């Protein structure tokens, strides 16, 4: 893919701007199927919270009953009744909140699983051009980090937020119902504290953002130093890098203690607000009680309400920040999921089977960026069984022709025909079936050697596999492996680059399609291994129309047609002899490899 990087410069679709409400409404629509279940969970959360609010009221009754019992007969029966009621309350509250958590966890996992599958599916339905402009790491972090963040928020924050709201509203209602003056006092005294808290949050936010940025800088710098380690060493360049590290590290230190200190202030402050509210209620309560002795009874209840009232406020702060980060995460997920797919082809009915392998390029015009046409007007005919080579310096756009032929990209004007049928009339799937392909990147996946060769085609017999491997000179090597064809391939399987390449050639062989594409299939192999591969490929090419892109000109001299590309355009075409005779770019390119300096 790196070869593509310097060609296209198309902005990734339209840059969508992040809007909190838009993203959340998308998320809600995405979770549509689970909404009833989520609502059930939220009802459970509300139920659990209601019991929490009612609990203190019963505790108050119990304490009053015991108080009465001090100076006379205690109504122990009533105590038992209240006690049992409380047990019932607590039990239901626990049951409801566990049920809530259980449901939310399950639903969240289902949603995140669906999201990950959707992303995986999306990767396969996006036009290839998209991947030229985006970093792999970015998509990976959407699959894991972003979906994870989203999962956590859905799991906790929403239910927490709902119970916090119920708790908040419930305790305010209970307070006002009991006594409005004291309610105002309690709320007022807490508000003073929250003003301070808001100031701190605002200030600490600054440090947190800067800390994240500095950490990013430091990461970038360290990555650079570690990955360029031997160059830095060989050039004695440590000093400059160390100074930069020192500067960033120092800045990070200064910021990080401030950030940590600031956020550390929250808890003690919350604690203090609680105490302040408590004292305020006591004093005002005392003043009120002086005028009306009956008021005494409401004081203990108020003390509990003050406590209940301050609790959810910190939950709000927490939930808001995690809702924000979940918003950002789901924005990134949806941004990816909403990228334009490839054109839908379900209406196409024409099918090309048993193709002969005649290819015709007819006035093809193409640019990765529509404004920057690279292939201007290309026409060529390839008869079945012919070998076509595309040569040119690095970055000349050789791969472009393959991309167009395979319909990885759609051409802007003109047409490409196979056996006289326009590839536009066929489905992409049908086009792909017509070709087998060996690429420069030896892409093997984790699985057995057999899996890697058979790949997605269950109808291949062991015999066919063996024949292909014998043809590639792989069979003997595979037999020496501990599990033969069932040896697992993973990152450290110990296959050399050449052997990996041979496996991909075997894969192409068993695929047995009428046409063959070899895209720099031997460039990361040393020249002696290349001979082996060359033999295997010659076998592969027998009877097939083949299109070969090669770095080393010696391999394509016998091609029926050589297309010479430069700066994205085909500047010469013909066979080896005619091109050499022309004395143009090709002959220059060809001769430059032997000249002594």
């Amino acid at each position, binding site marked *: 893919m790196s070869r593509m990087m*310097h060609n296209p410069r198309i902005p990734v679709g339209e840059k969508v701007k992040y809007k909190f409400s838009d993203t959340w409404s998308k998320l809600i629509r995405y979770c549509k199927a689970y909404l009833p279940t989520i609502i059930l969970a939220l009802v459970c959360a509300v139920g659990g919270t209601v019991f929490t609010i009612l609990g203190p009221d019963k*505790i108050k009754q119990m*304490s009053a009953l015991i108080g009465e019992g001090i*100076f006379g007969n205690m109504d122990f029966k009533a105590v038992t009744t209240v*006690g049992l009621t409380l*047990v019932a309350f*607590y039990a239901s509250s626990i049951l409801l909140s*566990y049920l809530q*958590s259980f449901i939310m*966890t399950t639903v969240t*996992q289902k949603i*995140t*699983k669906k999201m*990950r*599958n959707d992303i*995986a599916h999306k*990767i*396969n*339905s996006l036009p290839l051009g998209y991947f030229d402009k985006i970093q792999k790491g970015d998509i*990976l972090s959407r*699959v894991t980090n972003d979906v994870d963040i989203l999962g956590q928020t859905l799991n906790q924050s929403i239910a927490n937020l709902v119970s916090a709201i119920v708790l908040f509203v419930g305790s305010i209602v209970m307070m006002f119902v009991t006594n409005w003056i004291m309610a105002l006092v309690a709320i007022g005294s807490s508000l003073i504290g929250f003003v301070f808290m808001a100031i701190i949050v605002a200030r600490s936010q600054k440090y947190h953002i800067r800390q994240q940025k500095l950490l990013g800088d430091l*990461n*970038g710098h*360290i990555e*650079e130093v570690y990955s360029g*380690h*031997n160059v830095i*060493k*060989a*050039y*004695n*360049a440590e000093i400059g890098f160390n100074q930069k590290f020192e500067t960033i*590290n120092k800045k990070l*230190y200064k910021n990080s*203690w401030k950030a940590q*200190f600031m956020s550390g*202030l929250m808890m*003690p402050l919350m*604690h203090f607000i609680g*105490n*302040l509210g*408590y*004292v305020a209620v*006591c004093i005002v309560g*005392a003043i009120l009680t002086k005028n009306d002795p009956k008021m005494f009874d409401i004081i203990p209840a108020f003390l509990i309400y003050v406590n209940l009232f301050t609790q959810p406020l910190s939950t709000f702060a927490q939930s808001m920040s995690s809702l924000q980060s979940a918003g950002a995460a789901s924005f990134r997920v949806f941004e990816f999921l909403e990228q334009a797919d490839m054109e839908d082809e379900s209406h196409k009915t024409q099918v090309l089977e048993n193709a002969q392998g005649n290819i015709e390029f007819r006035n093809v015009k193409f640019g990765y960026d529509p404004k920057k046409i690279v292939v201007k007007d290309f026409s060529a005919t390839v008869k079945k069984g012919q070998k076509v080579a595309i040569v040119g*310096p*690095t970055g000349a756009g050789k791969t472009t022709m393959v991309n167009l032929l*395979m319909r990885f990209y759609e051409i802007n004007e003109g047409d490409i025909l196979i056996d006289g049928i326009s590839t536009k009339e066929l489905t992409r799937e049908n086009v*792909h079936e017509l070709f087998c392909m060996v690429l420069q990147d030896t892409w093997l996946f*984790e699985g057995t050697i057999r899996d890697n060769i058979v*790949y997605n085609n269950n109808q291949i017999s062991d015999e066919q596999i063996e024949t292909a491997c014998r043809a590639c000179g792989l069979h003997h090597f595979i037999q020496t492996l501990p599990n033969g064809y069932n040896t697992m391939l993973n990152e450290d399987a110990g296959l050399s680059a*050449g052997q990996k390449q041979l496996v*991909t050639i075997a894969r192409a062989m068993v*695929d047995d399609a009428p046409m063959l594409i070899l895209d720099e299939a031997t460039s990361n192999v040393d020249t*002696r291994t290349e*001979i082996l591969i060359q033999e295997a490929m010659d076998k592969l090419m027998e009877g097939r129309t083949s299109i070969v892109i090669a770095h080393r000109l*010696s391999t394509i001299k016998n091609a029926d047609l050589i297309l010479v590309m430069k700066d994205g355009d085909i500047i010469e075409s013909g066979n080896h002899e005619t091109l050499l005779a022309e004395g143009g770019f090709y002959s220059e*390119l060809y001769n*430059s*490899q032997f000249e002594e300096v």
Partner: protein
Amino acid sequence: MLKLLKTLNWKEWLLLGCCAGLIVLQVWLDLKMPDFMQEITTLLKTENIAMKEIWKYAGYMIACALGALGATVIVGFLAARVAASVSFKLRKKVYEKVESFSMEEIKKFSTASLLTRTTNDVTQVQAVITMGFQLLVRAPITAIWAICKIANSNWRWTAATGVAVGIMVCVIMIIVIFAVPRFKRIQTLTDNLNRATRESLEGVRVVRAYNAEDYQEAKFESVNDAVTKNHLTIGRTMAIMGPGMSLISNGLQLAIYWIGAFLINRSANPIENVAIFSEMMVYMTYAMRIVMSFMLLIMFFMMLPRAAVSARRINEVLDTQPNIFDGEGVPETELKGVVEFKNVSFKYPDAQEYVVKNVSFKAEQGQTVAFIGSTGSGKSTLINLIPRFYDATEGEILVDGVNVKEYAQRDLHNKIGYVPQKAVLFAGDIASNIAFGDNGRGAATQEDIENAAKIAQAKNIIERKEDKYASRVAQGGTNLSGGQKQRLAIARAIARKPEIFIFDDSFSALDYKTDKALRKELKKKTADATKFIVAQRIGTIIDADKIVVLEQGDVVGIGTHQELLKSCQVYQEIAYSQLSKEELGDE
């Protein structure tokens, strides 16, 4: 974890001591408050409410609360500073350690892992120090103090509190047994998920060419299933935590009341009853604090394993001893650019097989020595021994007549201009990348830079750019093409004006024409420098003074192109695979 505490100096220990003292003060103030609350409640219960008294106790309470707030804020301030300073120093230590590593150690850890160890792991440790230290001091003090205050209460209450703590431990055990092993699996499963995604991304062309979209998606789905299952078990187990904890605190509260009711009901004496009642109220406050302390402690111990893993990973780096050290130092040598390999063998430690075996040759000043052989034949390894990226296992390498191990690494590196296989560029501009590093003879001038760019065939590329030599280079040179990067990397070596050039397969990213022009210029402009070239293409090395042919670590031929064509079978095979006989001029 404890080992990392050695990073603290006496000043920081003193600060932590202060923190501990302040935490004691804060706990004392916190535990004092229930007493005042009790007083206020009692006053409210009396007939004629003494407002003055209430104001007094309210004042005390506010004072206590403010005092506790003040103490906590100071503790937070000091702890944050100490923790930040610890992580500052740790990062520096790890960074410097990694810098002292040779390729061997870096390979052992892998760059990515070293990166996480320097940043994420340190941050993890920092978090535990700030949070953990306070928790670890505050929770036990609070718990013990509170227990002391209510030690003489009725045994039934004590039993109830004990049961509550017992249940708590059980809940935690369940979580530990069920969830923790699955927590540990999260990382592996996430890696699998990443791998599956990366596989689809990297193979996107192959996947489509083979119409294997469904096959890939099925694979992804099975990994995704495993992740989901694991998360579900964790989630469902952890969901017990919240309700479980509220069960314990609510249950304990209820139990204390119930026991109180029972005690008061049993005794007929009103005076005794008042005592029991107030004792009950006090007990309640303290019991709740004990339970809270235990919860905090448990939370700390649940946090600890993750931090311990981080600490261990950091220590692994710090404990690794680099095995390449500076030599005694060598005075200015008379010889320039003379390199001799004497019976050099190399194998990786723990490896069975030698990578290169018994290599001997000598390069005089100004000569070009080329290395050729199939992939994995040990070419790169061999020339990496000259700048001491590795040390030879046996034999010795002499640069200007002195064993490379005797040089200070700086001095040795000053003689060498090294161009790696994969061009590495650094964030900055083109000029800073060419004038990179220090060669002990002062910084490169603009003229040097332009000259180097010209020789490296990079001049045209650079001058076509808008900002010329001030053009920005992104980290890793990602905004340049492979060929451009390689040319700048070569220019960088040239600007260094070294005695010895090492080109580790540096020309294969260039097309034949550029390759040729570059070598021509190089020969003309740097005639005095000795050049070592690892190459794949015969064309690149056809005119070398000496070609060393390697086959699985053995030298199978040394000589010029023409000599080798006659005498060395391996060389012939390589040559014929690239060029036809006529082209090689072999008659």
